[in-house]
């Protein structure tokens, strides 16, 4: 399935900080067909470094989507049954307005004059996109990690528009440890002299800082066990230690490779803005308690965590489930066994598919 990204543009969006952006563009892709009743639409919400290209083969890059193992004909998000939408988040760098976009007032990139955005702002832009596509009510919103945070925001802020929320490997509020890892990433970027206070040129981005930020990120996405399995203590292209600071271990080589790859596709300032939005994320903001916040939701919930995920540990999902249970919300929850750490929702998808498929089918059967 070859797919193309499209772009919708809106006059403006007002932000939680009080600032506003105008105009604002959003890149999105769709898969499958919207039915006549417009009752089969599912919005997929991407994680930190994701984009609108969730499934199929991009006509532009020839690459498969980031959740291609979950979305497609007869897959968990069955494009034969459902109409699937995925858009790049506000503040991103893959077609939606972000710090690397041109500010029409100055003719230069926004850089760090871009207003600080929140998870709620990202979701508000997605809601505009749903209006644009004529979709009143979503059968489901679904996402892992930062995508799960957006799914929670959707369920709480647009209860009348969400029938079901699929919330995977995520939290209702960023923890100090999660903020800490994000801060290390931001500091790595800002300590790179090429960052230039945010005003770097696209030909000379703060590549070393951004690569280090990504290396740290990758460590948090894996688990002790998955790293032992994948790399062990194997040496890279050598029989014995080099007794220098070149690459000795396979794991070093992997992290360096991932870091350098990331620099070619991701904007350093977007990294700062999106991690900040994650860190500000706390579903209880403005509600006082998680119970009050989730009390506004009317969706049916599916919550999934993974046993080896230490970045978004299972207890954070269980906190959400417990609060939903206390108010007798309709909630299904499973702590799926996996060795893949936080990455499990992207790579270890057999059991996740089984659960999502059944949950969606029963939601579609009973609630629509």
């Amino acid at each position: 399935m070859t797919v193309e990204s499209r772009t919708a543009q809106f006059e403006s969006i007002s932000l939680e900080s009080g600032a506003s952006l105008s105009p604002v563009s959003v890149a999105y892709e769709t898969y499958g067909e919207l039915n006549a009743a417009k009752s089969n639409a599912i919005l997929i919400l991407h994680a930190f470094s994701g984009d609108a290209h969730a499934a199929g083969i991009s006509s532009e890059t020839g690459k498969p989507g980031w959740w291609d193992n979950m979305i497609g004909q007869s897959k968990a998000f069955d494009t034969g049954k459902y109409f699937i939408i995925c858009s790049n988040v506000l503040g991103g760098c893959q077609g939606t307005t972000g710090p690397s976009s041109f500010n029409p007032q100055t003719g230069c990139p926004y850089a760090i004059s871009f207003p600080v955005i929140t998870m709620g702002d990202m979701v508000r832009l997605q809601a505009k996109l749903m209006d644009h596509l004529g979709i009143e009510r979503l059968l489901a919103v679904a996402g892992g990690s930062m995508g799960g945070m957006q799914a929670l925001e959707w369920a709480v802020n647009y209860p009348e528009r969400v029938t079901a929320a699929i919330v995977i490997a995520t939290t209702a509020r960023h923890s100090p440890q999660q903020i800490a890892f994000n801060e290390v990433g931001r500091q790595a970027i800002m300590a790179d002299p090429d960052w230039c206070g945010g005003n770097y040129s696209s030909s000379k981005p703060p590549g070393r800082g951004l690569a280090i930020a990504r290396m740290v990120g990758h460590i948090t996405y894996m688990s002790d066990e998955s790293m032992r399995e994948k790399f062990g203590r194997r040496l890279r292209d050598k029989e014995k230690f080099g007794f220098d600071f070149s690459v000795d271990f396979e794991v070093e080589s992997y992290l360096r490779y991932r870091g350098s790859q990331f620099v070619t596709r991701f904007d350093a300032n977007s990294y700062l803005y999106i991690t900040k939005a994650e860190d500000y994320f706390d579903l209880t903001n403005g509600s006082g308690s998680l119970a009050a916040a989730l009390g506004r939701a009317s969706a049916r919930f599916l919550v999934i965590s993974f046993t080896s995920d230490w970045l978004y540990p299972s207890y954070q999902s269980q906190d959400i489930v417990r609060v939903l249970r206390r108010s007798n919300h309709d909630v299904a929850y499973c702590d799926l066994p996996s060795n893949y750490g936080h990455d499990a929702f992207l790579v270890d998808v057999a059991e996740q598919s089984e659960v999502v498929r059944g949950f969606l089918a029963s939601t579609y059967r009973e609630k629509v």
Partner: protein
Amino acid sequence: MAAAVDAVRKPFVGELLGRSDFAIIGEIVEPGSKVLDLGCGEGELLQWLAENKGVEARGVEISATKVRRAIARGVSAYQGDIDEVLADYADGTFDYVILSQTLQETRNPLTVLRDMLRVGRRAIVAFPNFGHWSVRMGLLFTGRAPKTGRFPYEWYDSPNIHFLTVDDFDQLARQERFIVERCFFLAGNRKIGVLPNLLAEEAVYLVRK
């Protein structure tokens, strides 16, 4: 006695999903009610109740594999330990709280029963009867912890940590002032009317406070 009358009127009970206790539960539960199934396994009973009785179904299951299969069949089940999750629910949240073949596996059966009758207006409890004659004979003649069709486990790997008999349950119901609305005693697919503590392999109780 209600059970005796039930047994005389209809001495055999069919099976629902291959189980006679499910057949009785399926008969007891009123259409459109709110049901919580503790230890719901793969959610077969809840799915049947949702599809055939239109109940609003919730399930708790401790096994990741089973809860996954329950969700996959469309049941709103969540992974958790019954001993802990019951405390989360407000009083009178459910019309029925079901505990089928699990009472003898809970750490604190009395707490579970009390909580079932707090969060539910009625409790349905199905349990294997440790007072059945075959269990008694086994212990008497072999001098070893009984192993029967209902209790196939070695003593060291049995999930059953609180054995009880029909008389034990009756005694506890009196002590706790639970009102037994209906009770069914089964040996295979046959309802037992007399000497249930000796003849029943399993019992199904419908109780309220």
